[in-house]
C-alpha cells in the first residue's frame, strides 16, 4: 500500500550501457527513496561513473528505464535531468577558475532571461550556505579557493538548481579527512530535508554511513543491501569477489645504505611562495618513509623537485651518493627513480595515447622498446599485454585510448610503468587515491615487495592507515616543514594528527 502511495524518488530498471565492445552496465536495477543515502560501491571500472552519467542525462542508456516518482522519464541531456530534480557533482571539477563563486553557480542556470538578477540569486545562494552550514566568500574567485571549498561550490551549484537527488562521484577523493567529515555532516542535513543522495566512494568508513549499498562488479549488480545488515568484510568480498587483507604483512628488515638524501631543500610553488621549507631527510635501502600531511602542505612541490620538473632554491638532492641537485626529469628516470603522481591524467598519462604507448612513456628509448631511434611496436605491444595481465587492467586491448579507462585502471597503467622502470627509488604521491580496496591491497603488496628488494620508497598519503601500514619511518609535514619524524612503532595517531594540523609538539604536550 505505502509503496504505491510513495513511489521511490528515483528508480532504475534493467539499465544497460555499452561503449562499442565494452559493456559498462548490464541490467542494473535499484531505487532510492526520499531522505535516503544510497552508496554505489564497486571495483575500479565496475561502471559506477557510467551509471551515474546515465542517471543525470549525460549518456543515454542502450536499454532500460529510469523512473522519477514512479513516472518513466527519458533524458536527452543533463538539462532534462535537472528539470526532474537530478543533479550531479563530478569526480573532476567543472568550475571556471577566473570567475567568482556566484558567477560559477549561476552559470548552470538557463532561466535568467535577459536580466541577471544577481542580488536575488546571491541571496538564494547565501541562504543555501546558511542552511547547510557552509562558509564561502561568494565574491571570491574560484582559483583563490581551496580544493575543499571548490567542492562546496559544486554542491551549492547543484542545490541552486533545486536538485532533489544529488549524485556525488567520489567527492572525498580530493578532500582532506577533516573536509570529508564536514561533507558527511552536510549530507546528513540534506537527507533531513528529504533530499536523496547517490554517493560513490571507495572508502569503506564512508560507505558505511549510507542507508543502502548497491555493489557493482563488472557492470552487474552483485549486492543490494541495507547498510545496517552488512559489514566491511562482506562488502569487500562482494565487491572484489574474494576476501581482502588490507593489513599487509610488513616483515622487519634492517635498512641498508642511504639512497635518497635530501638536505635543506627549499622549493617555491607556482605563485613564488615557499612551499618546501629547508627539508632534510634520508631514505635508505629497504625503507619506506611515509610523509603524513594534509594535501597542499608542500608534498606535491617536494615530489616535483625530487623528480626534476621544479627547480630547488637551496639545498641538495643525492641519490646513492651521486649529486642530483638541479637535475632534469630524464636524469631522475635514468637514475632509477619512479614517480606515481597524485593527479594521474595531468602528470602521469597522455590521455589521447593508447594504453601501450602510456606503458612506455618516458622509457621509450630503452632497448626493450626501440631499436636505436625506431620504436619496436611488437615488443611494446607484448610489454603492454603483459602489464595488462599482471595488473588486471580492464581495457579492450593495448591500443585503446587511455582516457576512456576508468580512474583506477588508468592508475594501474602508471603503476605498471613505474614499477617496471624504477631501479632504486620510488616516489609515490597519494598512490591509492580513488582506487578500490582490491587494488589498494595490491599496491601495498607491491610497495612492500619493492622494499624487500632494496628500494628506497617515499610515500605521501593523507590516509593515516596507508602510512601506518607501510612506513618504517613517518615524517609529518605541515606548511612545507617537517614537524617530526617517528619510527612506525613509536607513532601515535593522535600525535600525528596534531602535528599534521601544524601544531608543534611542545604546544601539544
Amino acid at each position, binding site marked *: 500500500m505505502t509503496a504505491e502511495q510513495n513511489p521511490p524518488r528515483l528508480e532504475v530498471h*534493467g539499465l544497460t550501457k555499452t561503449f562499442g565492445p565494452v559493456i559498462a552496465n548490464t541490467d542494473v536495477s535499484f531505487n532510492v527513496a526520499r531522505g535516503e543515502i544510497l552508496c554505489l560501491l564497486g571495483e575500479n571500472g565496475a561502471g559506477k561513473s557510467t551509471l551515474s552519467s546515465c542517471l543525470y542525462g549525460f549518456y543515454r542508456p*542502450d536499454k532500460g528505464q529510469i523512473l522519477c516518482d514512479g513516472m518513466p522519464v527519458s533524458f536527452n541531456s543533463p538539462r532534462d535531468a535537472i528539470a526532474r530534480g537530478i543533479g550531479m557533482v563530478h569526480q573532476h571539477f567543472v568550475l571556471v577558475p577566473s570567475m567568482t563563486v556566484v558567477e560559477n553557480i549561476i552559470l548552470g542556470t538557463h532561466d535568467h532571461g535577459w536580466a541577471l538578477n544577481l542580488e536575488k540569486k546571491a541571496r538564494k545562494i547565501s541562504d543555501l550556505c546558511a542552511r547547510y552550514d557552509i562558509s564561502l566568500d561568494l565574491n571570491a574567485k574560484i582559483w583563490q579557493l581551496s580544493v575543499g571549498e571548490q567542492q562546496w561550490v559544486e554542491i551549492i551549484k547543484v542545490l541552486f538548481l533545486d536538485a532533489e537527488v544529488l549524485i556525488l562521484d567520489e567527492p572525498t577523493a580530493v578532500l582532506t579527512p577533516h573536509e570529508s567529515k564536514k561533507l558527511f555532516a552536510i549530507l546528513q542535513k540534506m537527507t533531513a530535508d528529504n533530499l536523496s543522495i547517490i554517493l560513490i566512494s571507495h572508502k569503506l568508513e564512508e560507505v558505511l554511513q549510507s542507508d543502502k549499498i548497491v555493489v557493482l562488479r563488472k557492470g552487474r549488480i552483485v549486492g543490494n543491501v541495507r547498510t545496517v545488515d552488512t559489514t566491511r568484510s562482506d562488502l569487500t568480498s562482494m565487491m572484489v569477489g574474494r576476501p581482502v587483507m588490507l593489513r599487509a604483512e610488513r616483515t622487519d628488515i634492517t635498512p641498508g645504505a642511504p639512497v635518497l638524501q635530501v638536505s635543506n631543500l627549499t622549493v617555491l610553488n607556482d605563485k613564488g611562495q615557499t612551499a618546501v621549507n629547508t627539508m632534510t631527510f634520508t631514505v635508505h635501502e629497504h625503507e619506506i618513509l611515509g610523509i603524513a600531511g594534509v594535501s597542499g602542505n608542500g608534498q606535491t612541490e617536494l615530489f616535483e623537485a625530487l623528480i626534476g620538473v621544479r627547480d630547488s632554491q637551496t639545498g641538495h638532492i643525492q641519490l646513492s651518493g651521486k649529486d642530483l641537485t638541479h637535475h632534469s626529469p*630524464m636524469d631522475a628516470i635514468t637514475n632509477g627513480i619512479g614517480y606515481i603522481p597524485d593527479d594521474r*591524467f595531468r602528470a*602521469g598519462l*597522455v590521455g589521447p595515447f593508447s594504453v601501450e604507448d602510456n606503458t612506455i*612513456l618516458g622509457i621509450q628509448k630503452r632497448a626493450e622498446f626501440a631499436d636505436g*631511434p625506431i620504436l619496436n611496436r611488437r615488443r611494446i605491444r607484448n610489454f603492454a599485454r603483459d602489464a595488462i595481465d599482471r595488473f588486471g587492467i580492464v581495457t579492450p586491448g593495448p591500443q585503446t585510448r587511455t582516457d576512456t579507462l576508468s580512474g583506477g585502471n588508468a592508475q594501474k597503467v602508471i603503476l605498471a610503468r613505474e614499477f617496471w622502470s624504477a631501479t632504486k627509488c620510488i616516489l609515490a604521491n597519494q598512490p591509492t587515491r580513488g582506487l578500490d580496496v582490491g587494488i589498494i591491497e595490491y599496491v601495498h603488496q607491491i610497495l612492500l615487495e619493492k622494499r624487500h628488494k632494496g628500494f628506497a620508497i617515499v610515500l605521501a598519503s593523507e590516509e593515516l592507515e596507508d602510512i601506518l601500514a607501510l612506513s618504517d619511518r613517518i615524517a609529518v609535514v605541515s606548511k612545507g616543514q617537517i614537524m617530526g619524524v617517528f619510527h612506525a612503532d613509536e607513532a601515535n595517531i593522535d600525535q600525528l594528527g596534531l602535528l599534521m594540523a601544524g601544531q608543534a609538539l611542545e604546544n601539544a604536550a
Partner: protein
Amino acid sequence: MTISDYRIEKRTDVGAIGLFMQALIAITLAFVASGLLLTILGFDPVAAFDALHKGAFGTWRNAQGSLIHAAPLAFTGVAAAVAFRARIWSIGQEGQFFAGAMMAYFFTTFLNLPALIMVPLVILAGALGGGLMGGLSGTLKTRFNVNVVVSTVMLNYIIVYLLSYLLTSRIWMAPGEYYLQTDRIPKNARLPDLWPETDLHLGVVLAVLTIIGLHFLINHTTFGFSLRAFGDNAVAAHFKGVAPKRMTLIVLTLSGALAGLGGVVQSFGVDFRLSQTFLYGHGSAGLIVAVIAGLRPLSIGLVAFLFGALAKGGLFMQVMADISSAMISTMQAIILMFFLVTSVLFQYRLRRISQDV
C-alpha cells in the same frame, strides 16, 4: 514492448575509411558550391570544371604539372603539421619558405661550382634558411617567452620586406631588369629534371621522400613519440623526460627547415628566379593542406596533390574559360570550409538504440 529510437553520439575514433568518406563529401560539396558561385558570376560551370579537369589531368604532361605544383605545398604542409602536432602554433611557413629560397639564392651569388656539389648545397641552404627562421621564433619563445603566433607572423613580414628591399635596392636585381625579380639562377644550381622531355624535377622526388620520412619520424621513432606526447599533454611529457624548451626549439627549427626546403624546390625547380609573386601564398596554402589532412603526413601528400591539381588546372581554366585564378584560391578556401564543417559532423554518428517501454 521494444521501440527503436535513433540517437547521435560522439565517436572516439573516426578511422581511415571515415576520413576518406569525409574528404570525398567535403570535396564534392565544395565543387557544388563553387559551381553555384561560378553560375552567379555568369560563367558556365560545366565548361569551367571541364577546363579545370583537362588542365590538371588531361594529359600526362598536365598531370606532371599538377605534381610540380603540389611539391612546394607538400613541404609547407608537413612544416605546419610538425609544429601543430606538438601544439606549437607556428604560422611562419610563408616567411620560412621565402627564407629558404633566399638563403639558397644567396649562395649562388658568390659560389659557382659543378652541379654535383651545387645542387646538394642549395638544398641544404634552403633548409638552413628556413631552419634559422624557425629557430629564431623558438629562441624568442624559450628565452623571452614571446608568443609563437606573434613572432612567426612578425618574421613573415620581415623576411618578405627583406626580399623586397634586396630587389628594389638592386642588390639582387640584374642591371637593366624591369620586373622586381632576381637574375636567373645559374643552370648548375637548378634542381635537375628527372629525365629529358619532362618538367618533373628532383624537388618532386624530394617532396615524396620527405612525406614518407615525416610519416615515419612522427609515427615510428622515439623522437616522434616524444613530440606527440608533448603535443597531447605537455605536463605529463615534461614529467616523463621531454624537456619543453628543447622540444619547442627542435620542432620550430625542423618545421622551418621543411618550409625552407619548399622554397628551394619552388624557386630552384620551377621559377629559376626569386620574386615576391612567385613565392607568395605557398605558406598559407600549406597551412590549409595540413589542417585538411588532419596533420598526417601521408594525407598531406594527397591533399597537396589535390591542391596542386587545382592550381595547375586553374591556370588552364583561366586561359580556356577566362576565369580569374583568384577563383582557385576561393575554391581552396571553400574546400577547407566544407572540410572543417564535415569533420565536426563526422565526429558523431547515428546509432539505433532500442528501449524497453
